């Protein structure tokens, strides 16, 4: 505590930094002024300065908090790792609660869980592209949309069931992943991001305007739920088991691929593309794999989404959706599979729990992205090495 440089610093330049905080609060309130008038700007100023001073006060004790948190996590880790059986116990408890969920919780909660599962599949898919291979894809929702529409159209136009339509739907999204990747991979970094964004928008515009096939903004309704041995999975609880199965599948396969030769190649490309290509990795080919492999999971999520909602419309596949999935990946920790799962779960669950603040969800999301990038670019659970690069 005594040698904490942050505390010393704050004491030394106490008056100076207080004036600075005051100025910052004044400035931000001034920016707020035209939107809500003088009275609200003054209220805003009061709240803001209180919050800023409080944060300043807390940051003086940063070292203390950090050591406390670290001590607590270390203690938990010690307790857990003390006996292997406790890990097994924890895991089986988690698994059991996941399996028993429809019996323990109400329909509403199971519904949220299904949604979380679909987003976890999406986030795991995007994690392959962004987290493993380090390619920022801002149009990931396009593959999700293609998967959903493929199943919707095959089902309503050709009468194909879920299981016979799914392979086609997955094939289609994987191919579209390839098709986007072939030209896009000649670009680097932020240009790639913008081209993928453009691709996502084009797909959405086509879905929105190609009335004869996609029925435009009205969307496609009356999609059948999946059947297993002529038992309909339309019921929420039975559908939950299906998506749980899909999530497990996604989890296991992405995990296996991550530690395979392909996964290693992806990480090498992410860390340094030029070095990777010098080491004999065919970077273009592996980037293609990443795009197609990621798109595959988006297709699975899309088909599950269409089958669950029994309705699809272009509204569900906007750019904001892409950003939301990206946020899940970044929040959890780029490249960390458990982190991504937690990130997806948090971003779906939090707004559901905090109903009143749902209006502010996107506001907080935007702010959160900036804060995360500044203070913890590797995400909540991101390990060392997992970083955003070219």
């Amino acid at each position, binding site marked *: 505590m005594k040698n904490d440089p942050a505390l010393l610093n704050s004491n030394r330049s106490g008056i100076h930094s207080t004036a600075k905080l005051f100025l910052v609060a004044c400035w931000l309130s001034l920016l707020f002024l035209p939107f809500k008038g003088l009275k609200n700007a003054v209220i805003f100023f009061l709240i803001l300065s209180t919050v800023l001073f409080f944060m300043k006060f807390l940051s003086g004790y940063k070292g203390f908090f950090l050591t406390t948190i670290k001590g607590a996590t270390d203690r938990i880790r010690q307790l857990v790792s003390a006996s292997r059986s406790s890990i097994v116990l924890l895991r089986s408890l988690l698994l059991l609660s996941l399996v028993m969920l429809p019996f323990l919780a109400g329909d509403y909660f199971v519904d949220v869980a299904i949604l979380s599962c679909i987003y976890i599949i999406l986030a795991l898919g995007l994690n392959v592209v962004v987290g493993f291979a380090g390619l920022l894809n801002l149009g990931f929702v396009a593959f999700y949309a293609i998967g959903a529409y493929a199943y919707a159209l095959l089902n309503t136009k050709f009468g194909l069931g879920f299981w016979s339509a799914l392979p086609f739907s997955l094939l289609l999204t994987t191919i579209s992943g390839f098709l986007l990747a072939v030209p896009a991979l000649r670009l680097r970094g932020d240009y790639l991001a913008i081209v993928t964004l453009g691709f996502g928008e084009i797909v959405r515009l086509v879905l929105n305007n190609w009335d004869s096939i996609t029925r435009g903004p009205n969307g496609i309704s009356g999609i059948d739920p999946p059947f297993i041995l002529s038992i309909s999975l339309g019921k929420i609880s039975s559908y939950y088991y299906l998506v749980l199965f899909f999530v497990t599948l996604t989890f296991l396969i992405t995990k296996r691929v991550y530690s395979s030769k392909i996964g290693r190649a992806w990480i090498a490309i992410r860390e340094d593309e030029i070095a990777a290509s010098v080491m004999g990795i065919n970077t273009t080919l592996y980037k293609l794999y990443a795009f197609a492999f990621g798109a595959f999971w988006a297709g699975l999520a899309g088909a599950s989404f269409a089958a669950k909602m029994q309705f699809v419309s272009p509204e569900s596949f906007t750019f904001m959706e892409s950003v939301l999935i990206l946020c899940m990946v970044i929040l959890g920790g780029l490249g960390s599979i458990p982190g991504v799962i937690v990130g997806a779960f948090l971003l779906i669950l939090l707004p559901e729990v905090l109903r009143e603040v749902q209006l502010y969800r996107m*506001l907080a999301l935007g702010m959160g992205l900036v804060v995360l990038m500044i203070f913890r670019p590797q995400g909540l659970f991101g390990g060392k090495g997992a970083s955003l*690069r070219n």
Partner: protein
Amino acid sequence: MFLQQLMNGLTLGSVYALIALGYSMVYGILELINFAHGEIYMLGAYFGIIFLGFLTAAGLTAYSLPLSLILTLILSILFCSAYGFTIEKIAYKPLRNAPRLSPLISAIGVSIFLQNYVMLTQGATDKVFPNLFGTAGFRFLSVRMTYLQLCIILVSIILMIGLRLFVRKTRIGKAMRAVAQDKTMASLVGINIDTIISVTFIIGSGLAAVAGVMVAMYYGLVNYFIGYVAGIKAFTAAVLGGIGSIRGALFGGLLLGLVESLGGSYISGEYKDAYAFILLIIILLVKPGGLFGKTDLEKV
């Protein structure tokens, strides 16, 4: 019909060009796609409505319309510049040495934040800009043109010439070019990099504010999500002309405006928004440096 669409395209294109300049300047100096720039333009449109409403309530508009419009424009420029400056300080400056994609994601965050901030404070419905000029205009070679359209094109061109002169002739302009060429070297010869970057953001945001106010006047309707599409299109314009070049932004903007308005009337109006994206993808694949830009090799 063709000439008419040409004229509409030019009007639209000069607005894109104004916004594109902000992207271009920031990219030239920071190599950052300032994703939030489109939102600055949206803020400009809102400020236009807010300040004009305020001045009208104060009775100035009834006294002298031009004075009130000019004041509105100046206030909007001031506030948008302040926003641009603040965004840079909060969201980009701490990330200056971070990996390249971190500032881009931070910029997306700012963009989402600003959209929702405006939606929450101003409401989700369309805002109406008072129709001050009606449809007064003139005919020239069978093309009908409103005074407002003419005004938009003229103001854009004047601002661009002014910017070019600023960058070419003034001390700060020279410093900006130096920083764009080599940041380390520029700082070694005594240029304050932080100041130059702030100036870049302030000028870019001011230009976007002008574009915003003019578009609000032109279309009469403003919504909180207009910034996203306009931003993407302006970025396309900047890339089209060669990012980092003022001349490129002008021609890219005009070209994009023409493609949109001609494509919208001759091919299909429904896919109007898609043309920009398709054009962007083609340009990036065929000539990544843009029409006026140069492609540089990646150094190890």
